[in-house]
């Protein structure tokens, strides 16, 4: 082995000090316990046609066949055949499918975490209809249990377990909102109100890069005179557990929001401009609550479209062209296709769709934790170049989206390639262009100020 190879950094990270056998055992046990009939159907139906490769941004931008989506779950397909499938005893006795070993799991870490955003585009091309993104999510559960995940993502998980959020300790939440957002932007925030109709939640980006978004949602809610609040005990919506594959953490973060919403009597919980937050709470919360939630869960984009469509707020028209980047978890995986387009239309933009848009839009390349996993940057930037090219083909003046993670990913890409295009948030655009000078809005602002004083 050459010196260069010896000194080469391993392409995987490890957590804990378990033996290799223990890691493999943990991954396989989790995978087996996690496995249901639908996932089995998917495993059984694959015909190895490889068409999913053409739908994956990581394959298309690298031409490397290892990025073929269904290949990313190969060890788990192997484990399924050997331990769970209809003919598992035969496979075991005749050793037709070998045992999954530690090397395979280590090698597959990159494929499961660095080169998959769980965007689900591959599922739209699969002739068998296999939901590969869902299988990747299940495979991540096993990898998490084995302590075989990217260190940066695990760090976020550990921070969240310690603080209750990857962004800030929950004890500091109210202070951060008051000092770093309310005082800076001048918009009154309602924090820790005991009872409220609307519980507003946030993603880590909004306590970091996108603090204006926090003031903006407050501005809109105050304007319409809503009975709303942020809560220290229930604000963290991004759900790093969902992304990492840590089911216990996913449950904890989910129930934190559910319990808080129930405690304050909320009728609606508004999720931030974050795609994975929507997937985790809107489509998975009831797995732990056990029945449909007793309140509505809506994404910020749905909320904005609602208040605009119902005429609760009015916005100034912007005479310009724009193209919209579809956040995968919101659009393809969440079914929220029209609301962002309603908002873009209400803002007066002439919307020019990218060649592949809506259900078939390309991922930004940073979802599923890839943006936090810095070692995946080179791959992510390749995806960005493709996205940039698609946007430029539209000739649009503005580049809009409605997911903070997509925005950070695209903004990071723009910075890397010195692209002078600002990635704009629908929430911020609505707030910036909201017409505030009507009588009703003044009344409602007064009410909100009183509410805030009462709480203080």
């Amino acid at each position, binding site marked *: 082995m050459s010196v260069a190879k010896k000194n080469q950094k391993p392409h995987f990270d490890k957590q804990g000090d378990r033996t290799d056998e223990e890691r493999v055992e943990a991954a396989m046990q989790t995978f087996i316990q996690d*496995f*249901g*009939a*639908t996932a*089995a*159907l*998917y495993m*059984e*139906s*694959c*015909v*190895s*046609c*490889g*068409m999913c*490769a*053409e*739908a994956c941004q990581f*394959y298309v931008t690298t031409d490397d*066949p*290892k990025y*073929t989506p*269904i*290949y990313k779950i190969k060890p788990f397909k192997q484990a399924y055949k050997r331990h*769970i*499938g*209809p*003919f598992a005893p035969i496979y075991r006795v005749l050793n037709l499918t070998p045992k999954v070993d530690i090397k395979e799991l280590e090698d597959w870490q990159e494929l499961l975490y660095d080169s998959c955003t769980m965007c689900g585009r591959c*599922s*739209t*091309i*699969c*002739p*068998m*209809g*296999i*939901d590969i993104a869902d299988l990747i999510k299940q495979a991540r559960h096993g990898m998490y249990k084995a302590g075989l995940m990217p260190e940066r993502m695990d760090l976020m998980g550990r921070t969240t377990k310690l603080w209750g959020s990857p962004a800030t300790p929950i004890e500091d939440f109210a202070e951060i909102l008051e000092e770093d957002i309310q005082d800076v932007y001048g918009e009154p925030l309602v924090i820790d109100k005991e009872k409220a109709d609307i519980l507003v939640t946030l993603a880590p980006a909004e306590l970091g890069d996108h603090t204006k978004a926090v003031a903006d949602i407050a501005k809109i809610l105050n304007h319409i005179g809503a009975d709303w609040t942020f809560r220290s005990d229930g604000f963290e919506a991004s759900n790093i557990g969902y992304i990492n594959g840590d089911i216990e953490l996913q449950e904890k973060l989910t129930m934190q929001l559910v319990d808080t919403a129930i405690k304050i009597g909320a009728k609606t919980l508004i999720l931030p401009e974050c795609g994975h937050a929507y997937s985790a709470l*809107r*489509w*998975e*919360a*009831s*797995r732990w609550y*056990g*029945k*449909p*939630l007793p309140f509505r869960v809506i994404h910020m984009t749905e909320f904005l479209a609602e208040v605009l469509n119902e005429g609760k707020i009015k916005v100034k028209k912007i005479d310009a062209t724009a193209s919209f980047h579809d956040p995968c978890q919101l*659009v*393809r*995986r*969440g*079914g*929220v*296709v029209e609301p962002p387009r309603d908002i873009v239309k209400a803002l007066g933009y002439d919307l020019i769709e990218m*060649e*592949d848009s*809506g*259900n*078939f839009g390309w991922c930004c390349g940073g979802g599923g934790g890839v943006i936090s996993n810095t070692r995946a940057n080179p791959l992510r930037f390749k995806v960005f170049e493709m996205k940039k090219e698609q946007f430029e083909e539209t000739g649009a003046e503005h580049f809009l989206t409605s997911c903070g993670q997509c925005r950070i990913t695209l903004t990071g890409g723009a910075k890397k390639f010195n692209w002078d295009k600002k990635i704009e948030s629908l929430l911020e655009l609505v707030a910036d262009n909201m017409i505030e000078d009507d009588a009703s809005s003044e009344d409602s602002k007064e009410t909100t100020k009183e509410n805030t004083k009462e709480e203080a």
Partner: protein
Amino acid sequence: MELLQFARGTALNFALLVFFVGLAWRFFAIALLPFKKNPTQPRDGVGTKEKAVAWFQGIFMRMWPHKSFRKASFFTFVNGYVFHIGLFVVFFLFGPHVSFIKDLTGFSWAYLPSPIIHFASVITTLSLIAVLVYRLRNPVQRLLSTAEDYFAWFVTFLPMITGLMTVGHFGARYETLLAIHILSICLLLVWFPFGKLMHAFLFVFSRGATAVRMKHRGAQL
């Protein structure tokens, strides 16, 4: 003609038994796994009826790729249709096959003239050869392929080539060729429930399951 008798009798009966028992077991074993409950509120206006409709829509909507993928997946899709339709036509619409099935089950139906079937057989055989060449040459398919993928191809190709040889009386006596042809079908039947050929039945369920999941969310199927 002992070999032909064996092929038509013991071998075929055994193959059919393995086929049906294997088929039933494969479905049963999947159904034994837990059906995960997720009682999330569906998208407004989506109920049981809408999901049932989505199941069928999902099956048919995936029969042709969306325009975003058409160029990249053109060969796989078109060639896939050629050999799937070809296999159907040759197996179910060839006069001697219809008679054979009638002897076995009592059911029969109209069949196509032999020249059309011969033409379809040649096209299907060429299409299957193209499938193999593509699998060996395409880096993605080559990486994904396991021994099972090649074996599934082999057991599908064998009845085609032996059928053509039988019809053409090529290489041996007709009875011997017919026996080999029937044995190749037996091999196909025996392997069918164990490998990926099961997608012929499973696609209905995997497409349907995803369609229902997406409909629940109000997403495009």
